[in-house]
């Protein structure tokens, strides 16, 4: 059977420089008008946003484009929708195509939701009668019955996204191109979109999906293409593509961590009257440099007995910290907060609850936390150490950033439990 989508050796170049980008625009326009062949030779400041990419999609197949921001996914999607012209290669589409590059495309803030449905549907090629015939379905899916005649600017971002998605998926295309829409709206909306895409897939619609949600990619797509700086790094089964991509990310992150210079120990400061520490805002809450009379705390991470900033999930971990109190502090509390790199607090290990630092007021202090099975999901984390006394915060800083590497299987969510899976009483999987 013929592929419904064929991308044949497609390339696209852009200029990093705004002025030359415009100048090249004029030249490209004249080349187009005079029938001249486009050249792939890079002019000054140009780079290949998409470089010699080829793939094919069978009818009813769902295909993902994955990769970091700026890897060329959206550019490729836009070329597939005919919005921009490739500089080399060709794209063949054998069916009516609908693209969802932006959920609010064609919407106007001053008009009502109903007016915007008609506008958006018309821009996607639908007539007035056709739109009227599916209007109820669109409104129902978007759950906006009460608000459909309210001005669009009164909608929340979630409502806008629901309406945009609803219009696009009710137009019944044979090929649907979707650019990272699962990142918009609340969890319930994301789930609804996901289920709708499943329904479209079942109905035989071929879908090309750009997504950073690897779980969704694996669940929805048969195949995936991993793009890196415009080039194909891997294409094949979605799970393998995601694994290859994640391994690459981990390796890059490890390399970055290895390049970071070790923090030298701060010299011990002379005793001085206490000043209020200065507050800094961060993704991990407010941070404070040490007050006078407290040395900068040092932290080290030991994984399976060795100092390491990247270790596999389920490793045995020892977190060791030390600092010196050069004068007396009372009612001390030390908390070790572990944050995911996006700012989500994973856990806080505090001495306060059980009054573990009773009687400690001055001198060197060393603490160790032993975790037999570190089961946070693979990803990047930050360790924040906070020290307080009765008068307030003495110090709170990010002391170490570390990575948890993937183990044998894939893992989703925040944690990766150690578990045994039984079907009909028989163990079919043991994690890890």
């Amino acid at each position, binding site marked *: 059977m013929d592929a*419904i989508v064929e991308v044949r050796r497609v390339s696209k170049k852009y200029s990093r420089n705004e002025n030359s980008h415009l100048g090249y*625009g004029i030249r490209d326009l004249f*080349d*187009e008008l005079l029938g001249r062949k486009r050249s792939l030779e890079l002019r000054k400041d140009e780079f290949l946003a998409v470089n010699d990419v080829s793939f094919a999609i069978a009818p009813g197949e769902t295909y993902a484009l994955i990769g970091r921001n700026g890897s060329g996914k959206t550019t490729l999607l*836009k070329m597939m929708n005919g919005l*921009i*012209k490739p500089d080399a290669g060709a794209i063949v*589409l054998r069916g009516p195509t609908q693209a969802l590059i932006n959920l609010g495309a064609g919407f106007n803030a001053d008009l009502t939701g109903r007016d915007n449905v008609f506008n958006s549907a018309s821009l996607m090629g639908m007539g007035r009668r056709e739109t009227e015939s599916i209007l109820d379905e669109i409104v129902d899916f978007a759950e906006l019955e009460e608000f459909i005649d309210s001005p669009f600017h009164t909608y929340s971002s979630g409502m806008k996204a629901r309406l945009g998605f609803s219009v696009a998926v009710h137009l019944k295309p044979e090929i649907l191109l979707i650019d990272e829409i699962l990142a918009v709206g609340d969890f319930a909306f994301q789930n609804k979109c996901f289920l709708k895409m499943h329904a479209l897939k079942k109905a035989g619609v071929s879908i090309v999906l750009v997504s950073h949600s690897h779980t969704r990619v694996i669940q929805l797509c048969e195949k995936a293409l991993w793009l890196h700086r415009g080039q194909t790094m891997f294409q094949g089964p979605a799970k393998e593509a995601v694994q290859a991509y994640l391994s690459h990310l981990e390796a890059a992150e490890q390399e970055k961590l290895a390049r970071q210079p070790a923090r030298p120990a701060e010299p011990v400061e002379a005793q001085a009257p206490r000043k209020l520490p200065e507050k800094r805002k961060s993704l991990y809450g407010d941070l404070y440099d040490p007050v006078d009379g407290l040395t900068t705390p040092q932290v080290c991470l030991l994984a399976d007995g060795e100092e390491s900033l990247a270790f596999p999930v389920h490793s045995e971990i020892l977190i060791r910290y030390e600092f010196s109190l050069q004068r007396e502090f009372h009612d001390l509390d030390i908390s070790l907060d572990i944050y995911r790199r996006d700012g989500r607090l994973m856990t806080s290990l505090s001495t306060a609850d059980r009054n573990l630092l009773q009687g400690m007021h001055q001198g060197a202090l060393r603490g160790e936390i032993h975790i037999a099975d570190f089961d946070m999901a693979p990803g990047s984390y930050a360790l924040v150490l906070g020290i307080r006394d009765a008068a307030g915060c003495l110090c709170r800083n990010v002391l170490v950033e570390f990575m948890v590497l993937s183990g044998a299987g894939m893992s989703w969510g925040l944690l990766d439990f150690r578990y045994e899976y039984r079907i009909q009483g028989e163990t079919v999987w043991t994690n890890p």
Partner: protein
Amino acid sequence: MAGFIQIYSAESRALHFSEVVREMIQGLRRSRYIAYRLALKDIKSEYAKSAFGIVWDLLDPLVLGIVFYALWQAKVFNAGEIHMPYAVFVVYGILLYQIFSEATLLSVEVMHRSQNLLTQLKLPPEALILSVIYRVAFSSIFRIAVMVLFSLLGSALSPVGFIKFLLCFPLIILAGVAIGIFLAPFNAIYRDVARFVRVILVPLRYVSPVLFLIPKTSILNILLLFNPLGTILPNLRLLATNNAVADLGLTLAHCGALAIIGLVGWFIFHLSIPVLAERA
């Protein structure tokens, strides 16, 4: 999927002239409803929070008309042999010129103004052109109403001539659109093009027979040979008020030249959108 095939390639579309022309005609047919929605969206959002809406658009030319009427009465200038009350002459002139300049500017800027749409949705380029025509046609309804009102007040309305005027009236919109879409792709890259057009439109009003007739002996009369407004605008005015036409040969030549500019502009506009959408 039988029968449906769409190919996007790096090859220049200009090499497939007849295919492109077919696409342009199909695009025009497919775009009528899209253009209507686009124009409606623009009109609604433009007048969304305005109590007087279109009145403001009419007020500006009428104030200018009053000033020139006062100057004419004070014999500051001679309007020439105008064959109608000066008030009627000046209202027709200013409103027709306003329609022409609105059509020109909206067309020149259409690609730039639609950049968000063009980078997110696949639209027939013709939808943008038609949307400009619809939008100018909408505002023209009110302007024509004002012209009729002044004709009746000045007893300068030929019923037969006015029907002919209505039939020929789209020429003034198409003249602006023809020039505008020819320049639009270049304005998508360098905004200087629209600025230049804005600058030119101010003196063009005074060297065209908008506020007074250009004396035959004046050197400006030579410019009128190359200025389509020099024939289209006075002839529309003459048709409505006197059921008459002047300089038919030159008028037809101007219309032909504009038709060529418009068709070439449309072809360029059609081909340039996928090349320039991201740069607009």
